[in-house]
């Protein structure tokens, strides 16, 4: 009989146990009654029998291209916005704000989609907007844009030689600016057709879309210099916002993974020969999408366009290049020495005007962190001014351009009411081309711009979100930064608070727009502009009841 002492028995037991574990790696699985998933695999036959030749297009109910009924859908937009602006917080402090507003926003988008057959579809999209009177805070891109309402200030700016106002009661037919009473009138209802088009095709080879529709043209996220077809441009602060397209016929021919498009765009009040033509080829080359396009319309600068887009790691990288022959803008130039008038406005119908942009974007749901948007973009605007001042002058291009625009607008508005309205124009010749607001619109004056936007929502599974948007004109080094946060009470109620800090020397693009409106001497060759420092604004917005239906 063999007897074992304790250590020998222990060794034998360990050897047996090790062997058992190695022999049956599933030992733990076999006897792990805690595995909650094992019961899913108790059925020996885990394969189902199916009809592998089932035709997915046989039943119209399963075909997304066909619908028995016209489908209506839409979304409701509701918000209550409050804004406070301090024009000179650096000198006067942040006591009583210089401007405050309470602005309700109510609107809806309605869309119908009719698909009587696989090769025919009609879609319409309508926008309803109700807006009450209110004061828009002069901050952000909206804030720096001058518009028709700013002409109301002309009545006080036009003075005679004694300094007395020429029109103390305001300009004839000038907008009524008496806003002492709080807004409380009936809201204005705007109804517009945003899209209305039909899709049809020839033998499933050539696909047509005719009507008013948004055109997918450029690849830029915050700027798109290539997009000359749509009626509205991308708003860098709201890059996912609606872009309104023109009436056009799109002819599309897919070939392989590539696509050929031809757009015929119908301008307003035009002759047949004014039809704009825009061919486009989109190539898929590996992970890169390359676009080659052109645009031609009689009496407008023709353009050649290249677009590029590809994924680089977690980022979507994109670029656009545009080369135009001539510009549609009116430019301001300084005349030499002591010439009178000291400036002139000119058109540049000839010459090459390049434009380009390059940027990146990352949109990701990062586990444990939240939903991230991170995008940045550089814009080269070849139609912009190379410097922000003109030779021999201290004022900025935008200050002089604004004064010229006001003088020309005043002369046009007063034609017939004063003997020689052209006498109101002193900065340029009355015969010079007229400046338009579009010539001093945001993102047109400078030659170099950059913007960055980032947002993180549902942070770490919470209801909080943060955003930061910044944009800079690298020609005059003005810009603004807008940080904000949001809190989602429910899916139908969201509070967001943003601040905007504009910076830049007086008269620069993103500085306080008041520094571009003459405070004195409008009719002279040396208008005076106020010298105010950066403004700060705070906006609170409560979205209420918004959602799709």
């Amino acid at each position, binding site marked *: 009989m063999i007897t074992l002492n304790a250590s020998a028995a222990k060794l034998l037991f360990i050897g047996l146990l090790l062997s058992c574990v190695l022999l049956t*790696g599933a030992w733990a699985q076999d006897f792990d009654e805690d595995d909650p*998933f094992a019961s899913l695999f108790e059925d020996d036959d885990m394969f189902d029998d199916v009809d592998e030749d089932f035709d997915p297009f046989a039943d119209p109910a399963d075909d997304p291209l066909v619908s028995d009924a016209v489908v209506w859908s839409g979304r409701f937009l509701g918000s209550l916005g409050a804004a406070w602006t301090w024009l000179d917080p650096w000198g006067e402090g942040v006591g009583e704000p210089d401007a405050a507003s309470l602005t309700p926003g109510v609107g809806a988008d309605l869309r119908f989609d009719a698909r009587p057959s696989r090769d025919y579809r009609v879609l319409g999209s309508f926008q309803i907007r109700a807006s009450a009177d209110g004061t828009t805070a002069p901050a952000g891109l909206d804030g720096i844009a001058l518009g028709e309402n700013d002409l109301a200030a002309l009545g006080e700016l036009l003075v005679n030689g004694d300094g007395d106002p020429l029109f103390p009661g305001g300009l004839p037919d000038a907008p009524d600016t008496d806003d002492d009473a709080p807004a409380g009138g009936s809201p204005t209802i705007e109804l517009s057709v945003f899209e209305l088009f039909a899709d049809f095709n020839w033998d499933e080879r050539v696909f047509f879309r005719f009507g008013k529709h948004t055109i997918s043209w450029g690849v830029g996220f915050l700027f798109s210099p290539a997009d000359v077809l749509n009626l509205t441009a991308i708003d860098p602060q709201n890059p996912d916002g609606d872009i309104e397209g023109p009436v056009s016929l799109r002819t599309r021919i897919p070939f392989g993974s590539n696509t050929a498009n031809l757009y015929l765009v119908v301008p307003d009040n035009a002759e047949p020969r004014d039809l704009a033509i825009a061919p486009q080829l989109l190539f898929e080359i590996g992970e890169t999408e390359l676009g080659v396009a052109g645009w031609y319309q009689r009496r407008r600068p023709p353009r050649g366009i290249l677009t590029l887009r590809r994924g680089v790691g977690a980022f979507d990288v994109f670029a656009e290049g545009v080369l135009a022959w001539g510009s549609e803008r009116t430019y301001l130039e300084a005349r030499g020495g002591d010439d009178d008038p000291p400036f002139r406005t000119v058109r540049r119908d000839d010459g090459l005007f390049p434009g380009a942009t390059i940027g990146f974007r990352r949109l990701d749901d990062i586990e444990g962190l939240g939903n991230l948007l991170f995008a940045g973009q550089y814009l080269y605007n070849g139609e912009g001014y190379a410097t922000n001042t003109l030779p021999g002058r201290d004022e900025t291009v935008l200050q002089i351009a604004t004064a010229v625009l006001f003088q020309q607008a005043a002369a046009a508005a007063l034609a017939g009411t004063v003997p020689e309205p052209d006498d109101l124009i002193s900065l340029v010749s009355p015969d010079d081309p007229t400046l338009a607001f579009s010539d001093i619109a945001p993102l047109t004056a400078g030659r170099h711009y950059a913007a960055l936007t980032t947002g993180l929502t549902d942070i770490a599974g919470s209801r909080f979100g943060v955003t930061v948007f910044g944009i800079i004109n690298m020609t005059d080094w003005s810009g603004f930064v807008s940080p904000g946060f949001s809190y989602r009470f429910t899916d139908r109620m969201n509070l967001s608070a943003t601040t905007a800090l504009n910076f830049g020397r007086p008269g620069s693009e993103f500085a306080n727009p008041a520094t571009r409106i003459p405070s004195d001497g409008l009719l002279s060759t040396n208008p005076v502009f106020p010298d105010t420092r950066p403004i700060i604004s705070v906006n609170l917005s409560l979205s209420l009841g918004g959602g799709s239906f």
Partner: protein
Amino acid sequence: MFFHRTARRASVVLGLLFLVPVLGADTPDFDTMLREVDQLGQFGDRDFSGVYTIVSQVPGQDDSVTQARLFRRDRSDQFVLIILQPQIQRGQGYLQTGDTVYFYDPESRRFERTTLRDSIQGTDAQNRDLVRGNLSQDYRVTDWELGRLGSFDTYILDLEATGTGVDYDRIRLWVRTDRPVVLREENYSVSGRLLRTLLFPRYANVGGQAVPTQILIVDGINDGERTQITLRDPSVAPIPDGVFTRDYLERVSR
């Protein structure tokens, strides 16, 4: 003393005797196995289509149901995924052409680049869960063991990414020993945290290939979050070329 030495030797020899079958057994060719796993879900020259229903469960919330039709053409690395339900998102879709995946946003009329890792309508299901995998190229087996899951003997494989262009750095895979069918998959982060568990309890034979008809996804981070995917009407009937185009995605969108 003799007995002690004998016993010690006996225990060692006995242990080694048990070890011999294990050490001497042929290690399966896992490279081939991963290729077979990849191949089993590939349709080569034939098209594939089916309707997937995705039910997402989040504690404290109503279940969300998403239905999508998938069209696949593996020979040209293309797929189109069209959302059918909920009605409000009907027509939204994804298109893969080559190495690029686009999401068409009907609101902005833009094609946005996305990835196979992108979740489908905010669920735990990802685009990659509905299309063929590429395990044999993206991963290598670092460890394995035998196991059992329900009624099936399985190889349990630990996979490690061979590059950086993958969604998960580590994967644990349960593969049937009798045929290269995946029963269970666990996705881990680089730090070893379990992110998702996928279970494949039902399959269908379609066109000579095995396609999961039922997938259960258990969220490894958010306790209680589960997603169930079921497949109906799997088919290898030919699909018109025009389906795999941006134009089709635009036409079906609302």
